[in-house]
Structures are given as C-alpha cells and as structure tokens.
C-alpha cells in the first residue's frame, strides 16, 4: 500500500514544475558505476549511418572509417614566438605549410582563358594573411611532438585539426579590422584570428564560463601580454544570440563557429555526448539555435562586412539548411540582404591537402578521408549587403 502511494507521488512530482528546468541542470545525486548498455557513441554512430548513408551514398563508408580512426593534426605556427626556428624544425620533420603551398599553387597556375574583368581576386585579398600551418603529406600518419615553450615565453605551435583553419582563412581579414568571434571557445580559431595580426579589436565570446576559461588559458600560453591587452582583446561569457541587439552593425568580420553535434567527437567521447537520450530534445532544436546565432552574428556585422558560418558536422540540417534559413529569416523579418560568397576558387587552392565534398548547395565541406583525416568542417562565407 505504502509502495503504491509512493509511486503515485513520484509520478506526480515528475510531471510537476520540475519539467521546466532542463534535466541536466537538476542535481544528480547518484552516479552510475557501470557503463551504459547502449552508449551514446553507439547511438551517434547509428544516427550517422541512417542520415549520412543517404546523404553521402557511396562516399559514406570511407568517411565513416576515417571518423572512427585517429584524426590528423596540423601545427599552427605561433607568430608571436620564434617562428623562423619553429618553421625550420617543422620542415625537418618533413611537414609542410599547406597555406603557403596553396598560395604558390595559385601563383603557378593562374586561371587560364579568363577575361581580366572576371579574373579571381588575388589570393592575398581573399585569404587572411600571415597564417602558417604545417601538416604531413597525404597518407603520412606521423604525429607532431607536443608544443614546447620557446625563448620568448610562449608556446611554439598550436596543434589543431588543420581544417579548422579554413573558416579563418576564408574570412579574409584585412589589417585594421574589428572582429567578432561569437562562439569562440576552446580558442583555436580565436588564436588563428589573432595570428593574422589584422585585428584592431577582437571580441571573443562563449556562453560557457568554463570554456571561456580554456580560451583564456590558450591566449595566455600563446599571445604576449600587449597583444591580448583588454583594450584589444575582449573575452566575454554571454549568450551569443543577443549580439544583434547589443552590438548591431559593429564589426567588419564575424566568425560564427556554432555549437553542433561535433560528429567526430561524438563518436569517441562518451561523457556529455549530445547523442545521449537525455539530450535528445536539445539536439533536435540545435538547428534553430544555430540559425539564431548566425542571425545575431550577421546583425552584428557592418553592412558591407563579411561573416563566416562554420560547424564541425556533416549534417545538411546543421549546415546548408541553417545558412539558407538564416538568409531567409533576415530578409523577411529584418529586411536585411545577405549574399553567399562563392568559395569555389578558394576550395581549389586547398585540394592538395583536403578532401572536399563536391556537391554542397552553399558553402564548402571538408570530408574526412584516411589519406587526409581532417574535418568534418563546413564553412560558408556571407556578405551583408544592407
């Protein structure tokens, strides 16, 4: 009898007000001591098999095996350190600077048969400058040694997925730009933005305070004090969706590297995996959140300025869908015209280092392949016209 009553009470309580607070924020008293029978990583893989099997067809198996295998890293050279020594050392390891190679690739083969008027803009204009990132050749699985502290008191290079550098390159920073990084943590792309040396002011924001803490640590380890001075680099922990209201029409360049299902990470890390059953709702409204963030980022862009949207997911719904949805939203609700920038030429520059998906409707997608296990990384460049 007592048991029945208890059970009834429990049901009631469950249905009551507690439903409003997201389940993950409630205090968890008991932690499981055994592993879940059906881990979130497996749920993630199932989800991917279903959606990407259809989306990519015959390409999917090779993407799948790459996602499940060890990823490849690139070494972003720290320009604030003794970078010439660092470059010599990296070259000794038989790595090469893929950015430099891409530029020289263009120089050696200028577009043939194109009338001058529609010739592509010189690369130096289209790509953010001063970025030097080393990778090993296609098929080479060597690892970089851990970064060390150089003589100038900062670490010599930052190991990251080389594909993560492409959105920053595509943004095409110019000297003196005011830059906003809307979802900055854990800080790889923010660091790259600073490496260009073009940021008059950089605003880096991330909702999570712990992740912003990581961002700060990265800046401390890599950037000298005068560059990361508060007047020049401002780190905040606010809700990125508010930026349209807070600082509308302010920035020359905006990077919106939204939270996504982090495909590669979700297949390996069990902890806090977004494919957990308890986070299903959250995952389902993710595209909506991404639209809101991109809209805010575009609102914060000056008319005539540029924004780059990027994710590390392969999903249509989080990539092209979001870009197209946001453009429509801004046109309808705010009467703001946004144009998609064609990155075909940009893509061609980097084809020696990365594998690209050939049929994106808008933007570009780096797909993982065992020969070059970078990505996934989707990026799309937008220009705010009005």
């Amino acid at each position, binding site marked *: 009898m007592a048991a029945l009553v208890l059970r009834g009470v429990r049901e009631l309580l469950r249905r009551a007000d507690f439903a409003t607070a997201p389940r*993950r*924020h409630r205090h968890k008293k008991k932690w499981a001591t055994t592993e879940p029978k059906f881990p979130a990583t497996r749920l993630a893989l199932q989800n991917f*098999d279903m959606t990407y099997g259809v989306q990519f067809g015959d390409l*999917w*198996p*090779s993407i*799948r*095996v790459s996602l*499940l*295998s*060890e990823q490849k*890293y690139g070494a972003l050279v720290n320009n604030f350190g003794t970078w010439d020594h660092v470059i010599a050392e990296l070259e000794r390891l038989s790595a090469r600077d893929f950015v430099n190679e891409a530029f020289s690739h263009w120089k050696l083969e200028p577009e043939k048969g194109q009338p001058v008027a529609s010739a592509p803009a010189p690369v130096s204009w289209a790509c953010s400058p001063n970025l030097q990132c080393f990778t090993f050749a296609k*098929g080479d*699985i060597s*690892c970089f040694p*851990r*970064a060390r502290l150089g003589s100038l008191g900062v*670490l010599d290079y*930052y*190991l*990251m*997925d080389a594909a*993560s550098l492409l959105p920053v390159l595509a943004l095409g920073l110019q000297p003196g730009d005011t830059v906003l990084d*809307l*979802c900055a*943590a*854990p*800080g*790889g*792309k923010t660091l790259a933005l600073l490496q260009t040396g073009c940021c008059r002011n950089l605003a880096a*924001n*991330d*909702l*999570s305070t*712990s*992740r912003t803490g*990581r961002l700060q*640590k*990265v800046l401390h*380890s*890599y950037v000298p004090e005068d560059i990361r001075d508060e007047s020049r680099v401002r780190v905040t922990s606010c*809700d990125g*969706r508010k930026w349209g209201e807070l600082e509308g029409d302010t920035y020359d360049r905006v990077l919106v*590297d*939204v*939270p996504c299902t*982090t495909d*590669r*990470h979700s297949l*390996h*890390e069990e*902890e*806090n995996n*977004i494919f957990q059953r308890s986070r299903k709702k959250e995952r389902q*409204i993710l595209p909506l*959140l991404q639209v809101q*963030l991109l809209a805010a980022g575009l609102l914060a862009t000056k008319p005539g300025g540029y924004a780059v949207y990027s994710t*590390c997911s392969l999903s249509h719904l989080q990539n092209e869908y979001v870009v197209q949805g946001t453009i429509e939203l801004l046109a309808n609700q705010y009467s703001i015209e946004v144009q998609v920038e064609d990155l075909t030429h940009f893509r061609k520059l980097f084809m020696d280092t990365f594998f690209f998906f050939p049929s994106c409707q808008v933007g570009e997608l780096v797909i993982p392949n*065992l*020969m070059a296990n970078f990505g996934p990384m989707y990026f799309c460049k937008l220009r705010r016209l009005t």
Partner: protein
Amino acid sequence: MAALGRQVIDWHRLMRLTWATIARQTSHLREQRMTVVSLLRPLTTASRGGSLKELSCVTSRKYMQEAECRTDLSQCLLEKPGTPVDRGALGLEAITTSLLDMGFSDAHIRELLSIQPRPTPQQLLDITSELILLGLNPEPVCVVLKKSPQLLKLPVKQMKKRSTYLRKLGLGEGKLKSVLYCCPEIFTMRQRDINDIVRVLREKCLFTVQQVTEILHRCPYVLREDPGELEYKFQYAYFRMGIKHLDVVKTEFLKYSITKIKQRHIYLERLGRYQTPDKKGQTQVLNPSLKDIFRVSEAEFLAKTACSSVEEFEVFKKLLAREEEEGPEGCTSDSEEGTSSGEDAGDGDSEEEFTDGRN
C-alpha cells in the same frame, strides 16, 4: 583396384614384420649372400651351358646389382667413424629388405639412405615403420623424412608414444600427411606443449574432439602458437566477430594471423560493411562471407569486399598498428587538459563539459 590389391599385399607383408622375423631374415640373407658370392665364382670361372647359366646369370645379376648397391652403401657407412662396422653392414641389408617389404621402391630407399645427418639403420627402420603403421604411404614418408631429418633422431619410444597419441586424436593417414608436411614438429615437440594446445581447444574454446582433429589437420600451424594467443584468436572470432564453432573450423579461421584478422575485420567494421551479430544473431547489414574476407588476396578483398582503395587500406593498417601499440590512450591527448600543450581536437568540441547548447 590394383592399388587396393597392392595395399592389401603391403599390409599383409607388414603383418609379418616383427623383430624376430627381421632377425631371421637377416641371418637368412647373410646365408643367401654367401651363397650368391660362392655361386658367382664357379659361374664365372667355369662356364656352363644353357638355361641354368642364364637363369643364374639373371638372378646373379640382380643380386649383383643389389649387392653392389649394398656394398657401396655399406662402404659409405663404414667411412663414417664410430659406426659398429659389422652391425652396420648387417642392418643395412635387413633394412633394405624390410623397406622393400613395406612398399618402398628402390628410389625411395636410396633417398632414405642418403639422408644427412646419417641415422643409424635401426633408427631409420624404426621411424619409417612407425610412420607406415600410422597409415602414411611410402612416398609421403620419404618426402617428410627428407624435409625434416630431425625426425630420424627421435628415440623410438617417444615415436611410439606420440604415434599412439596421434591415433587417439584421430590423426592418421592422409590427415597426418598434410600435418607433417607443414609441421613435422608434431613428433619432436614436447608432449606438454601439444597438450597445452589441445587443452586450449577442448576446454577453453569448447571444440568437440572431431573439431579438434579437424583443426589440427587443416591448420597445423596452431601447434606452433602460444596457447594464450590461440585462445585470444578464438575469442576474437567468437565474441568480437560472432563466428560460431562450426564456422571457425570450416573456414580454417585459426590459420590466419591475428594481425591479418584484425586488420581486415576492423576495416570492414569501420567501413560499416561488417557488423557483429546481436544476441539473436541478427545484423542490420549483410555480412560478407568469411571466405571473402580472409581467404581472398588483399587486392580482391579491397576490390570486392571492402570496395575501397589500396592507399586507404595501407594508411589504415598503419593507424591500426599504432592504436594497438598505444592501447586506450590516444596519440596526442585529446584535449581536456591539453590547453597548455596547445592542442585542440577540432574547435568547438572535445570539452569535458560540452555545453548546454547555448553559446
């Protein structure tokens, strides 16, 4: 039919093979040789007419040839120091006849007798007869002994003991032949080691007796494996790949190296082309047959089963080797504590507290 008849005769002859018989024959032969030699002298010195001469010539010629052979060989044997001369010369004749009786041809016998390092004739006879008794034909016996002369060094007692054991295991005749061709150490290895392997197969892997025989017959190299590794290989097949006992035996799974097994299986698994069957034995993908995975060449495997390129598989093999080496930790520590060393496994991810979705 004729072969069968020959076999019957052979066996018939074998039946009569006891040491007593041999001894008797030896003495008999000795007399015979004396007689031949004595016969020869009068034949050559005094010519007699007709058939008797021819007949005796023919017989004597045959005996002459054999005697020559034997004298040659006995001379060779005599050259070898430390061999009891008269016994050696004596045993040789007995051996040759016994070998002939067992069904060896002259060519075979010559081969056997020329094996280096030279065994004692008695030894040679003992070993060969054991092998014949186990059901091997003369030709394979020759091949085996030539290939692995160390077998001739075995003490007879061990040989007999091992033969009994092999018979108990069900390994004889043709099965033994194929095992011996690859794995002659089935006779020379320690009983304890064979026991270990058989025990792993019977008690740990739970194969039936017939299945164990079949495995030893088809995949004799399991005898060379470390028992622990053999068990691991089986467990990989059974639990990780979901292959049942019957299929393990039928497809000769145990003969492939664990490296090759893991490479091909994990590659297919990660491609999404192989799935371990669940409790009910079902999969969402149609798994390729084990033959198409393991028995085919690598080129065919990649072209037909995996539908992937050679370069990708090469890279995969290297990555897998590294993964195996490093165990559960990664090559570069994925993140959480990685900030000071400056690593970022792809921006926006790899975080101890992912986010609650809002940034």
